[in-house]
């Protein structure tokens, strides 16, 4: 079966049910066993504004939301006016004729499918909020999806409102479906069904589930887009799973709650976005100094300051890297897709506990909030859990206990508070092996150096454990695209298109940012005649990091910082511009 693919855009103003329409299409497709990847572009308003959701549906796994549009569902005039030009030739435009007018000078290469929603459903108690359901029904026909799944989805959405409301919505959707069947030809033959239904999830949900699978028992947060949906998931499921979930007064409290819980011996997680992470930074150093394991997710959004609350960016790397004063051991991970978000949590907790360090996880709005299908069979619950020497509940009476014992790896056995026979203080002031924090001890140059050496030694061993970076695509290529975190799926598709256009391209998608796997990265970069670093920020934070860690200066950079995610076409265009025009940074000023 050759790959089939359709991209649908749904737009309107906040409050018109765009999210629900989009989620419904995603769910219906996933229940067919089809894959989806969706991205919601929204604004920081509760009502009004322009909300725009793009859902890519395919018969095979897809890794980004694409860069084109086959079907436009316009819930208001604004959406039609904004997005008509983006629809591919022979594409489809679905709208309510009672609300949206096709302009006089409209494109002639599109199929305009107007549905008179109210007239069609006036005997069913039609209300204007139902137009999205009518259009959903019509879209189901156009996309050749099975209407029986619409009934199931309506059941999911409206069952809390009672059976009559479910019935009413199913009927309204059916009218839309019937009208479309009578008036519009479908976009293609029926979508072939996949072998089994798929789960529709987000990066944030996968972080949360992954954390719980990894043994997380404490989650703290202060609401902040785009991290909030992690809190919502934990708030919903935490109590029944035995996870204490705490919404704190601010991010200063959040991280310190998590450190307290980590100190007491549970796997503790917190998440925020850049602004909240700024508030947390002092405590990141506290975790490192007291050698308390903690995992922190920073779901980046556009900055600086409160910046773009609802838009994506990858510009907090330096903040993660430079978080907190002084030198201290830490780890920075940048997961690359939904499944990776899940498994990264187990890695993060294991590393945090085994090395007794803070582990910082960089996500971004695109990764955290996008919707993606995942095969449930790919979500293994028996993830490896390795606490190292970090949660000891007893200590032999005849052995002296030193909490910060100087060891070959820098990792000291950690006995949990409450363990009889042992007492120690974990101090954020400099201290010796026993944890003594009086000034005479902490400021003694010999002891200070010994303590620093012990803590920093962890990095040497940690670095050895980091998997070598793997190049995706051919071993040797004309161009190597280097990116980090969420852009992996976009880079792979861009590389594929470039290769098909005659520019052989491979991808180095970095997940382990600190400690940096310099040797492995250099092995890849050294082979490539043209290294182009692609990232979603202005200053090229990864590019500079690579230079700092390896001395390697990339040949060019594709950057984007307008708030909207990278798209394969943008990367392709950027690479071509660099190769053909000889510029070094695309788009440049």
């Amino acid at each position, binding site marked *: 079966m050759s790959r089939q693919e359709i991209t649908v855009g749904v737009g309107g103003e906040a409050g018109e049910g765009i999210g629900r329409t989009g989620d419904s299409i995603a769910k219906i497709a996933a229940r067919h066993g089809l894959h989806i990847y969706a991205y919601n572009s929204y604004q920081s308003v509760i009502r009004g504004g322009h909300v725009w959701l793009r859902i890519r549906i395919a018969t095979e796994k897809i890794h980004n939301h694409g860069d084109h549009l086959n079907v436009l569902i316009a819930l208001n005039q604004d959406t039609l006016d904004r997005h008509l030009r983006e629809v591919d030739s022979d594409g489809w435009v679905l709208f309510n004729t009672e609300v949206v007018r096709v302009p006089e000078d409209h494109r002639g290469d599109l199929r305009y499918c107007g549905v008179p929603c109210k007239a069609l459903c006036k005997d069913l108690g039609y209300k204007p909020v139902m137009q999205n359901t009518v259009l959903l029904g019509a879209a189901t026909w156009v996309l050749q999806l099975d209407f029986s799944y619409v009934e199931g989805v309506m059941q999911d959405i409206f069952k809390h409102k009672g059976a009559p409301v479910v019935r009413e919505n199913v009927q309204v959707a059916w009218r839309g479906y019937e009208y479309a069947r009578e008036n519009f030809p479908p976009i293609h033959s029926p979508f072939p069904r996949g072998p089994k239904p798929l789960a529709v999830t987000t990066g944030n949900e996968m972080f949360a589930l992954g954390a719980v699978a990894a043994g997380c028992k404490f989650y703290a947060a202060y609401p902040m887009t785009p991290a909030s949906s992690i809190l919502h998931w934990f708030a919903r499921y935490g109590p029944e799973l035995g996870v204490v979930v705490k919404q704190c007064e601010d991010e200063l409290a959040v991280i*310190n709650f998590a450190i*307290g819980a980590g100190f007491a011996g549970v796997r503790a997680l917190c998440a925020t976005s850049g602004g909240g992470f700024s508030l947390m930074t002092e405590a990141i150093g506290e975790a490192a100094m007291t050698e308390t394991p903690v995992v922190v997710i920073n779901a980046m959004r556009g900055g600086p300051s409160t910046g773009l609350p609802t838009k994506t960016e990858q510009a907090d790397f330096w903040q993660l890297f430079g978080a907190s004063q002084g030198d201290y051991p830490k780890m920075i991970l940048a997961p690359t897709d939904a499944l990776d978000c899940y498994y990264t949590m187990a890695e993060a907790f294991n590393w945090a506990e085994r090395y007794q360090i803070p582990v910082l996880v960089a996500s971004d709005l695109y990764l955290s909030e996008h919707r993606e299908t995942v095969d449930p069979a790919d979500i293994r619950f028996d993830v490896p859990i390795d606490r190292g020497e970090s949660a000891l509940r007893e200590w032999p009476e005849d052995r002296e206990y030193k909490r910060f014992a100087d060891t070959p790896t820098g990792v000291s056995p950690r006995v949990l508070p409450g363990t009889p026979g042992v007492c120690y203080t974990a101090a954020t002031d400099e201290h010796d092996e*026993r944890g003594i924090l009086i000034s005479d001890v902490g400021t003694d140059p010999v002891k200070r150096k010994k303590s620093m050496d012990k803590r920093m030694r962890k990095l040497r061993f940690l670095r050895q454990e980091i998997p070598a970076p793997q190049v995706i695509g051919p071993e040797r290529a004309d161009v190597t695209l280097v990116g980090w975190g969420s852009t992996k799926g976009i880079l792979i598709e861009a590389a594929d298109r470039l290769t098909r256009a005659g520019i052989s391209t491979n991808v180095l998608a970095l997940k382990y940012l600190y400690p940096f796997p310099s040797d492995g990265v250099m092995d890849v970069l050294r082979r490539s005649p043209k290294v182009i670093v692609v990232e979603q920020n202005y200053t090229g934070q990864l590019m500079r990091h690579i230079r700092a860690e390896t001395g390697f200066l990339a040949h060019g950079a594709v950057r984007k910082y307008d708030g909207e995610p990278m798209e394969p076409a943008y990367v392709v265009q950027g690479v071509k511009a660099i190769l053909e025009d000889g510029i070094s940074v695309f788009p440049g000023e």
Partner: protein
Amino acid sequence: MATAVLDVIQEIRDVPVEAYEGPVHPDWCPGCGDYGVLKALQKALAYLQIDPSQVVVVSGIGCSSNLPGFIRAYGFHGLHGRALPVAEGIKLANPRLHVVVTGGDGDGYGIGMGHFIHAMRRNLDITYIVMNNQIYGLTTGQVSPTSMKGVRTKSTPYGNIEPPVNPIALALMSGATYVARGFSGDPNHLASLVAHGIRHRGFALIDVFSPCVTYNNVNTYAWFRQRVYRLEDEGHDPSDFARAVEKALEFGDRIPIGLFYEIEVETYEDLEPAYKRGIPVDQPLGLSPEEGARLVQAWM
């Protein structure tokens, strides 16, 4: 209850504290009020016969915040102003532990003020002892949030123009369920307030006049001795909220110490839904396949 504080004073006077002696002697200035607080806490723990390994003493930054290093117990010495959130995290993860927070007025009523109010309204079972010397000692004598109006310090050479925070009134208004004030110069009374505070189910604040003998030459032992009186000696009823508020506002020629207010209500731990599965630190890690499948099912 008022008499209970006085009853304990006799019993607590001679209780042996060796079991709670820390690995080093404090490096506080000779005569510092914090010595009395340390001793009071040790006496309280000894009186209550709590094993040192079942206690976590949490602090922030400052002279007084070095206390965890001087007592035999588990300790966490954290950041300036952030002791309470750490303590709350510890308590939520392992509510079996006795969690005592020690710090100064700058730490608790200045940089940590937000956490202070929220911790009290949550009513977690935590004991918070604030060594209030009305000055920033470790940073060599700047004005603190409890410094009196008019005082001259390194950072207020022309006199402090801000009125002080009233921690007792603030605690009463924020929902603290045990509100007391002690004085380092009356160590057995203080020890009995601490013991009752630790035994109290819920958030206990014990504000302590703990004179800084180096940088505060106004609020000295002698200054307090002339003014303080025990609420217990005057038959104050700590269940009377309105009267407690009235007493909290008394600060001048006569300054009350003792138990202002105590009420027993549900603690945060009583309501925490996750405890239905048991104490977090005792939970097995991970998800069963059934649990996991059920969670994924919600996405199907």
